[in-house]
């Protein structure tokens, strides 16, 4: 059996905390009572942890929660029942800046009340910190299909540190570990790519996120060059001219072509065959082709065969060595 540490007693904890205070090494988020903040807000707003009617216009959406679509009919039905019965279960909010509120739960009820043009809604105010808020929102998002892989991956990464490891993260959100790896890959993209995806989050899905990440990290990293070609490829994808499965290949090819083009402009070979002072043919070699053009009036079938064989044999021999 593994040696287990005993749970420290309160006396030991206090000693540790004192030691931390003295060395000034108290970590962010460790034993920090938030009571000052809390009592301050409570004083300003004069609230308890209870139910009260608050002004609908003061309620902002949950910052961690992307917009949802609502079924109009269901909303109407709800607002009708509210207008008849009056009472509804209070919504849940937290206090945000200067007397405004952020919605935690009850978006449908809030919308129904807006539909009825009510000014106030009954709410319970809870103190919820950002970590809790983001985990809650993310868990909800992961259950929905309409959130892009990119957005999911970025939010997952933002709370990843609070989990012991990826297995725990995967278990919490009921995903496979592979899925989590693919989603987290988005967060390793260079900033310019994230900026690009912020505008068009659906352009790249988790099926290629890891491949793209690995490619970007492993290729001799020339940010500028990749940026240009990846963005070009993303444009083609947007226009439907390229599918994401071919994205990495496309970028690789663009970069190879570019390299070859450089070679060709620098080392273009153009020579001519002469006989008796006259041009009878040309020899060119550039990034794309090597071509030999000969005036066929000077060539008989045998010679043509021999030239073909000569090149053919030479190529066979050379390519075998490669």
């Amino acid at each position: 059996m593994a040696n287990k540490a005993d749970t420290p007693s309160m006396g030991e904890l206090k000693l540790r905390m004192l030691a931390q205070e003295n060395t000034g090494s108290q970590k962010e988020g460790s034993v920090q009572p938030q009571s000052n903040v809390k009592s301050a807000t409570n004083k300003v707003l004069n609230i308890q942890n209870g139910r009260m009617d608050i002004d609908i216009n003061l309620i902002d959406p949950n910052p961690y929660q992307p917009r949802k679509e609502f079924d109009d009919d269901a909303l109407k039905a709800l607002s009708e029942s509210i207008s008849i019965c009056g009472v509804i279960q209070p919504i849940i909010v937290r206090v945000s800046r200067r007397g405004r509120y952020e919605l935690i739960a009850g978006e449908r009820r809030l919308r129904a009340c807006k539909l009825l043009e009510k000014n106030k809604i009954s709410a319970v105010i809870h103190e919820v910190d950002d970590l809790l808020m983001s985990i809650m929102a993310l868990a909800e998002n992961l259950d929905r299909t309409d959130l892009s892989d990119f957005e999911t991956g970025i939010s997952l990464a933002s709370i990843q540190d609070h989990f012991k490891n990826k297995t725990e993260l995967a278990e919490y959100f009921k995903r496979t570990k592979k899925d989590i790896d693919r989603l987290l890959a988005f967060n390793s993209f260079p900033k310019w790519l994230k900026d690009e995806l912020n505008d068009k989050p659906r352009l790249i899905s988790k099926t290629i996120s890891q491949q793209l990440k690995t490619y970007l990290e492993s290729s001799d990293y020339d940010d500028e060059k990749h940026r240009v070609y990846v963005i070009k490829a993303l444009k083609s994808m947007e226009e439907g001219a390229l599918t994401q499965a071919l994205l990495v290949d496309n970028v690789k090819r663009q970069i190879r072509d570019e390299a070859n083009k450089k070679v060709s402009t620098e080392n273009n070979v153009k020579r001519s065959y002469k006989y008796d002072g006259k041009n009878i043919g040309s020899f060119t070699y550039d990034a794309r082709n090597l071509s030999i053009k000969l005036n066929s009036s000077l060539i008989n079938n045998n010679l043509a065969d021999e030239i073909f064989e000569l090149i053919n044999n030479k190529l066979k021999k050379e390519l075998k060595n490669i």
Partner: protein
Amino acid sequence: MTNYQAPVITVTNNKGGCGKTTTIVNLAAEFGRIGCKVLVIDLDPQGNASTHLGKINTNNYTENNIVSLLCSKETKNNVSKINECIYAITDGRFDNVFFVPASRDLDIVASKTISIHSNRPMEELKSRIEPMRDIYDVILIDCPPSMTSILTGNALGCATHFITPIDTTSDYSRSGWIDLMNYIIDKTSDINPGLVYLGSLLTRHSELTNIQKAIAFSINDFENKLGVNPNNEEKLIPFYIHSSTKVGEASVSSLPIKKHDRKNKIAKDYENLANFIKNKLLIRTTAEK
């Protein structure tokens, strides 16, 4: 055997309605059922635990109650005087459970008497509990919903362990709980430095609700940061208490949940909790099963 000292477990949280009393009553029932001799101390002036265990209203315990235990000098370290304040349950509802009933005037009387006459105001209960630790197998203390009360102070002053129930359907606030933990660490490090946190007990919990699941996670996250979870266990108390309307029904009929509804999942939850604590703290069983 002779050196056995019963663990003293305080269930506390300044939030009302989070399941302290429900936990005390059903934990006592389960400990008793598996053969532990249990003593329950009801430190909440509202006396819900006393009513549940004794089946009569706290107003009826006019004498020989928690006030006489705490405020009389005679009970100090005196087993027979202490015993006068302890009631047995003889009608078969709770096996092997004994209790000291609360009293409505507990708050006022105790606070006044103790703060005026005691030079160790947080250790009054301790001098009444210590002599009982080799008589009982486990001692449980129910607290009022107040963090700063002298009663809560006494409960923590004499405990060996404590549990904080958290109702995940309504305790959204981590900071409330963080304040509580900081307060306990701060207050008990002098008077009772050996006190150990057993864990938080999630009540009315459901892993199917995102908000509740997130609350559970964030509590665990903070326990790790606080250092009270040295082995990084997933949860210090590795299960939670589900939600059930039968809890209220059982308390109305003054029964343990298991006797009210044998197959209820909460009955199983508290059975698990009792067994877990019994194994962890090596609680002995000297009573009949």
